[in-house]
Each structure stands twice: as structure tokens, then as C-alpha cells.
């Protein structure tokens, strides 16, 4: 949305968000190393670098699990949306924490290897044919590389360079990264750690991420099954029945699934209705889950805005999305499912005295 290149468009919320993140990470690392040592198996004294390795590794895992929960939690409840707003900084910090973990691993286990430590990392264990003793490091390496790629390409420069659909596909790689982290921990530390708390926390995190995304997938499947019905009309326009005016809360939207599986958000702005494509031009965010702020449809993910009547971002910004035509019969809203070119003006449909 920015017209000039800026490394980060800072604002007060981002400062607070990042400050809370850094303090929370620092507190976790400190407590893990200082207090966590008391819970270690005393028959096997743990070296300080190993404690740091575990502290940063577990921190990165918890952060990644939490990041992956933010999306579905935001769909469950609007109160989680502020967490989503600056999620990219959360991800970059996670990559940094994972990098420190990787550095401790290399420095502790491979520093005195007769071969190069990076070569030793790949060649010291090649027991790929067995479950116990499987070289779990490869999953960690894959996840770390994935985190690095996503952190480096997280800036809006890469978003516009790659285009939102390609960028979004690339960043879905985080799910494979998370699966790799789960395998890394399940075949590595989980097999050797005696502490039951570790196993419980690990399982709870994986179960929470899995359940929330599974729930979101089921919800999405259900919503898509509720395709709007074609209406019986006298003209040539293939109107479909979108819902009732009373279903639309002021400044909010209802989302309609079209027969071609696209989705349209119908917003109510006081006494008028407007329909736009449900996909934000920035990161494909769900506009229909946002609201109208200062007269503009505002994406719940990063606050990109569009005017309801023409789907254009207010000047000086240049993003635009498709608009749709609406018709009102009594209290029933009808939608023309054919998208108009992005940025096309459509006169907002007055509700009149239909709904008072």
C-alpha cells in the first residue's frame, strides 16, 4: 500500500507489539536457563551451552506453534485480530531465535569434528533406515531453511515483486516447516528427554495447532457448501439470492459463496449496501471478516482499505478489487455473480425503509 519504499512502516501498535515480543522471548530464555536448571535430571548434569540450546530451541517451537494458532483463533474471535496484525515480525523473530538454537547445536556437537562442522551435520548420522536414532537433524535443517526463506521474503517488497498469490503460496511453506519441526522434536529430543512436562507441552502445542486448523478447514468446507441459490428473475442477469438485509450488521458484511467457489462480501454502510470481492489485494485477506472504518472497508489482517462503492483504496494508494451489482427486493438482497473489473464504480444500493 505504501507509495515509497520503507523498510518498515512503523506505528505505535507495531512498537508495542514488537516490544512485548522481545521482552517475552528474553524472559522465557532467562527463566528457562536460570529456573529450568532446577528441574533437570540431577544424575546427568546439563552443560550450560546445552541449556541455552534447549532454551532457544523450545522457544522457537513455542513461538511457531503460537503463530500458527493466530490465524484460526482470529476466525473464531475478533479479539485475536491484533495478534495477526504484526504476525510477520513475530515470524522474523522466530527465525532469529531458531538461528541461535542452530548456532548452539553446531558449536556444541560439531565444533571438534574432524571434518567441516556443516559437513559433519549432514554426514555424522546416516541411519535413515531406522526410526530410533533417525537423523532427526535433517528435519530441523529443513524447517530452519524454510523459516529463513520466509523471514527474508516477508517484506512487502517481495510481496509486490512475487505478486500476492505467489507470495501467499510460498508462505504456506510454513506448514511444511512446522510438520518438519514436529518430526525433528518427535524423533530427537522427545526420545531422549525424561522430563514428562516436555512431552506434555509438546503434545499440547501440536494438538492445539492441529485442532484449530482442522476446525478452520471444516468451517471453510461447510461455508463453501452453502452456495447461494440462483433466483427466478425476468431479466437476463443471473441474480442469486444473497441473504436478508437484517442479516447484515451495520459496518459489517455477510460473505456469499458463488457457484464458481469465489466469495463476495456484501457490506452495509449505514443505509446502503455494497458488494466487493472478498479477497484483499495485499495478502488475500478475507475482507468480509473486516469492517467499515472511516467510510472504507478495512481488511482485518493488515488494515488495507477500499471504498465500498468502487473497491479502490483511498488516494494516494492504488490497490483495487472487483465490485458487484446488487438489487433489493423487499428485504431480500440479490447479487449479480459476475465480477466487474476491479475499481468499477457501482452506486451503493439504498436500503430505504426496508429495515427501518
Amino acid at each position, binding site marked *: 500500500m505504501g507509495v515509497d519504499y520503507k523498510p518498515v512502516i512503523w506505528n505505535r501498535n507495531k512498537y508495542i507489539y514488537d516490544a512485548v515480543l522481545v521482552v517475552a522471548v528474553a524472559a522465557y530464555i532467562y527463566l528457562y536457563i536460570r529456573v529450568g536448571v532446577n528441574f533437570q535430571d540431577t*544424575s546427568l548434569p546439563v552443560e550450560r551451552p546445552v541449556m541455552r540450546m534447549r532454551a532457544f530451541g523450545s522457544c522457537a517451537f513455542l513461538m511457531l506453534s503460537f503463530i500458527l494458532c493466530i490465524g484460526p483463533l482470529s476466525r473464531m474471535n475478533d479479539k485475536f485480530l491484533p495478534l495477526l496484525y504484526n504476525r510477520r515480525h513475530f515470524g522474523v523473530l522466530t527465525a532469529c531465535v531458531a538461528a541461535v538454537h542452530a548456532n548452539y547445536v553446531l558449536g556444541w556437537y560439531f565444533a571438534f569434528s574432524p571434518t567441516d562442522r556443516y559437513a559433519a551435520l549432514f554426514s555424522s548420522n546416516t541411519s535413515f533406515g531406522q*526410526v*530410533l536414532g533417525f537423523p532427526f537433524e535433517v528435519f530441523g535443517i529443513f524447517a530452519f531453511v524454510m523459516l529463513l526463506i520466509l523471514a527474508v521474503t516477508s517484506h512487502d517488497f517481495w510481496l509486490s515483486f512475487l505478486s500476492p*498469490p505467489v507470495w*501467499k*503460496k510460498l508462505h*504456506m511453506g510454513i*506448514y511444511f516447516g*512446522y*510438520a518438519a519441526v*514436529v*518430526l525433528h522434536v*518427535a*524423533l530427537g529430543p*522427545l*526420545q*531422549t528427554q*525424561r522430563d514428562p512436562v516436555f*512431552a506434555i507441552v*509438546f*503434545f499440547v502445542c*501440536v*494438538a492445539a*495447532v*492441529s*485442532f484449530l*486448523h*482442522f476446525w*478452520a*478447514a*471444516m468451517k*471453510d*468446507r461447510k461455508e463453501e457448501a452453502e452456495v447461494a441459490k440462483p433466483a427466478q428473475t425476468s431479466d437476463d442477469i443471473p441474480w442469486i439470492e444473497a441473504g436478508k438485509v437484517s442479516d447484515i450488521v451495520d459496518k459489517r458484511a455477510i460473505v456469499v459463496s458463488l457457484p464458481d*467457489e*469465489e*466469495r463476495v462480501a456484501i457490506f452495509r454502510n449505514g443505509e446502503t449496501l455494497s458488494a466487493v470481492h472478498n*479477497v484483499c489485494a495485499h495478502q*488475500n*485477506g*478475507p475482507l468480509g471478516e473486516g469492517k467499515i472504518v472511516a467510510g472504507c472497508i478495512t481488511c482485518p489482517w493488515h488494515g488495507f482499505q477500499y471504498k465500498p462503492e468502487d473497491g479502490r483504496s483511498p488516494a494516494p494508494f492504488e490497490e483495487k478489487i472487483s465490485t458487484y451489482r446488487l438489487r433489493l427486493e423487499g428485504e431480500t438482497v440479490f447479487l449479480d455473480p459476475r465480477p466487474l473489473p476491479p475499481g468499477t464504480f457501482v452506486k451503493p444500493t439504498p436500503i430505504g425503509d426496508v429495515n427501518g
Partner: protein
Amino acid sequence: MKKDARKFHRTLWTVLGLVLPAIVLGALLIKQTPPETVQPVLLEPAEED
């Protein structure tokens, strides 16, 4: 999300949502029992003829 990304996302998580907890449970099942502390045993030197 665009419809293809949305479909991919939900298909992926329909699988991962079931597979990931199964991996963890499986890993817990095969978890190695840590070796017991074994008392050192002194080996008698072999008798010489």
C-alpha cells in the same frame, strides 16, 4: 484467500490436523526407555595357564 489457496489450505490441514498428533503419539509410543544406571562390574582377569 483466493479459492485455490483456500482449497489447498483446507485440504492440507485436513491431513496435517490428523497426521501431526498421530506422529507425536506414535513417537511417544516408541519412546526409548532411558537406560538404567548399571553398576560397574569388575571383570576377573583371565586365568593364565
